[in-house]
């Protein structure tokens, strides 16, 4: 290999390892020096992004290489540490490093007054390292290791303000729910390894291509178990309960982890091993995605905390992405993942800006009229975040959402298509609800009337993301994804693009637009210029159920309490009766009884001894001579 080429491929490796170096450096040396810590972390992330970008430029954004260092080579088990460099990982890597870089710059302003500033940046770097590990992994084991690392990083970041009980609990909840998903994931990995003999993605893909029924009767099971991992990480129903609680972490964390990157890891993984899923598994995946999207949208309609609304919105969009995978449109899912990263990060950062301006007040009913007080934030929030999210034509989110819905139609899943369109209407409704209550209308509290715009270190990233949110889809990202997954579509000139989309999927576009219009109109009627929520009165108990998140948390709590109780009672019984009673005291008692019985032989009377002696003699003779 060309030595120049060799160095070239070191660039992604640099991107992967720099955040680790930064995290270690901060933890080891710079924990007390705020500025240096921030600068170290941010500069490392900028260098990482730039090097990856250069690598992409150099390979025309379509690399196809796999670097690998053997790690464990023990007979049938071969685990390597490798970098899989193709369009999928490159795009995902760029999203992670790019959005991450912007968020880190933003955090310098947002976390400026926090006393654990340095720890925050160290943890962000650690998280980035773990996430890139997942992105660049070329085999299941490596991916799983980094999967767990991401779980740990998110635990540390959600529980950043660990002195607060609710934050500590939320981080535990996130980690445990993830763990449950990971267990299924591990079982799925084991099934794949057992059937195909390797954990390397390329080898597995070849294996399935050569022999489609290689996994035998376990194909659906393996697919569903691997999906369990995605369920945990991407917070699909029924493991969705951790995501809203994860809002206890600082808002930049929510932006990075729960909008752009970590939760997307599940979707990324599904696309990575898309070849493993058979039709039955895909159908299950599609339905679970659809149900998650619907449930989350319903829950979002009645939340009052700005971050929670955005959290449920994330859940709902993740449901969309998973649904996209389920209708065999992984390219569309990845496309939506990319655009979602842009606009959701922007929405969260905008919310962070709002929260900071409101002196850490998060209830939307205490905000209002912020359009005048925080114009830059509002503009970025609206044009770069809200409009793409609700699927306004020509904005980035419209292209990707439309692609998913078109995929559903193409796959003949009418139910999922209708579901998706309905959720689009709900999305428009709750997002406009948020917008009208927070940014329009009159200030509803003192803090709102004294709000001020955030410093430029925070607004600049917002502006960058806004540009991406509006125009991001015009980059040939979706073509790249479709090519990657084997669908050959023509790349059209970017101005031509929207018209192509309308032309190809007229029905999807039409109904999507209708859903958007309906949602906006109802939100405007219900929420523009009101001082309190009208929905509870109108919907009554349904509104309460939505606000209480369909009582999932309570149900899980009950389940856990009861099973734990039962298990504890069983253990108590075993411990008390069987172990202590039967075995230990039994042993003691038996020994005592035998001892007492033997003691009766020692009478002290010589004649007894003589008698026993003779009996023994007779017995011996009997056995020797025989009767």
């Amino acid at each position, binding site marked *: 290999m060309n030595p120049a080429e060799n160095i070239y491929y070191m660039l992604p490796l640099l991107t992967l390892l720099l955040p680790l170096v930064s995290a270690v450096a901060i933890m080891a040396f710079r924990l007390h020096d705020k500025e240096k810590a921030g600068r170290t972390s941010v500069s490392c992330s900028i260098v990482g992004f730039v090097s990856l970008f250069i690598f992409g430029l150099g390979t025309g954004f379509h690399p196809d290489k796999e670097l690998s260092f053997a790690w464990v080579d023990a007979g049938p088990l071969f685990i390597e540490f490798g970098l899989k460099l193709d369009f999928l990982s490159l795009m995902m890597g760029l999203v992670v490093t790019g959005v991450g870089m912007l968020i880190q710059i933003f955090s310098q302003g947002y976390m400026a007054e926090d006393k654990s500033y340095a720890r925050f940046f160290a943890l962000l770097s650690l998280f980035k390292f773990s996430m890139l590990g997942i992105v660049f992994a070329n085999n299941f084991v490596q991916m799983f290791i980094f999967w767990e690392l991401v779980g740990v990083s998110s635990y540390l970041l959600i529980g950043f303000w660990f002195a607060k009980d609710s934050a500590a609990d939320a981080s535990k909840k996130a980690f445990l729910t993830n763990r449950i998903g990971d267990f299924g994931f591990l079982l799925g990995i084991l099934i794949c390894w057992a059937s195909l003999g390797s954990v390397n993605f390329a080898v597995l893909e070849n294996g399935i291509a050569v022999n489609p029924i290689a996994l035998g009767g376990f194909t659906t099971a393996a697919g569903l178990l691997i999906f369990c991992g995605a369920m945990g990480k991407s917070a699909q129903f029924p493991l969705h309960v951790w995501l809203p609680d994860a809002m206890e972490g600082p808002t930049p964390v929510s932006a990075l982890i729960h909008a752009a990157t970590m939760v997307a890891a599940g979707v990324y993984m599904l696309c990575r091993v898309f070849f493993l899923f058979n039709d039955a598994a895909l159908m299950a995946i599609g339905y679970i995605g659809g149900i998650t999207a619907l449930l989350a949208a319903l829950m979002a309609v009645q939340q009052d905390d700005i971050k929670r609304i955005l959290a449920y919105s994330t859940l709902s969009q993740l449901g969309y992405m998973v649904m996209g995978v389920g209708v065999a449109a992984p390219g569309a899912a990845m496309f939506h993942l990319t655009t979602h990263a842009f606009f959701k990060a922007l929405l969260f950062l905008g919310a962070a800006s709002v929260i900071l301006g409101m002196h850490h007040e998060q209830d939307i009913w205490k905000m209002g009229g912020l359009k005048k007080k925080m114009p830059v934030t509002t503009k970025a929030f609206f044009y770069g975040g809200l409009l793409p999210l609700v699927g306004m034509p020509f904005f980035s989110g419209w292209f990707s959402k439309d692609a998913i819905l078109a995929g559903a139609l193409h796959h003949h899943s009418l139910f999922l298509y209708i579901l998706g369109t309905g959720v689009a209407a709900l999305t428009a409704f709750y997002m406009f609800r948020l917008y009208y209550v927070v940014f329009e209308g009159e200030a509803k509290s003192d803090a709102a009337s004294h709000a001020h715009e955030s410093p430029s270190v925070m607004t600049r990233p917002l502006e960058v993301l806004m540009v991406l949110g509006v125009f991001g889809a015009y980059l040939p990202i979706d073509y790249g994804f479709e090519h990657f997954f084997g669908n050959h579509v023509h790349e059209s000139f970017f101005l031509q693009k929207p018209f192509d989309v309308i032309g190809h999927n007229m029905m999807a576009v039409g109904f999507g637009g209708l859903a958007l219009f309906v949602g906006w109109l109802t939100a405007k009627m219900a929420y523009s210029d009101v001082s309190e929520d009208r929905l509870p009165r109108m919907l009554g108990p349904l509104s309460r159920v939505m606000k209480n998140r369909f009582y999932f948390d309570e149900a899980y709590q009950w389940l856990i309490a009861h099973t734990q109780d039962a298990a504890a009672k069983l253990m108590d019984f075993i411990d008390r009766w069987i172990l202590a009673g039967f075995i230990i005291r039994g042993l003691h008692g038996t020994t005592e009884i035998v001892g007492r019985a033997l003691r009766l032989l020692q009478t002290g009377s010589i004649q007894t001894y003589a008698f026993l002696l003779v009996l023994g003699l*007779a017995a011996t003779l009997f056995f020797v001579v025989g009767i």
Partner: protein
Amino acid sequence: MQDILFILFSVLTLVFAALIVANRNPVTSALFLVATIVSMSGLFVLLNAFFLAAVQILVYAGAVMVLFLFVIMLLDLGTEERKSIKAFSVGAGLISAGGVLGVFWSALQRSDMTAALGQPSVVGSTKDLGLLLFNKYVLPFEVLSVLLLVAMVGAILLSKKNLN
């Protein structure tokens, strides 16, 4: 003739032996033991063990039993109470005796003794015994003398009143 003598002597032996066990007075038991020994010596004569018959009477009946009687007189033991003999121990004794006897009997049944009949070719005369004793069994003989010495010393030591 020999048969009658055998029956006579064996019956006498067994009867006297039973009387040892059944008698309550230890002195009477000792005397019956003497009688048993004498009848056994008769049996020895029938078996051509002349020297041993003499030795039996000389040593056993003459010395050992006299020693027994001395000790009984010394200890001045009275007769044993009848009720101190428990039925339980009688039962135990009968069981053990029965067991041993049963085993012996079955062993005897299954062995072949026809070859043992016949005229004796050796006679237990003193000369023959002496030759055998001092040729083949001289070592046990010497050891036996040491044993006797030890027994003597032991008996003397044990019967001292205070062992200082």
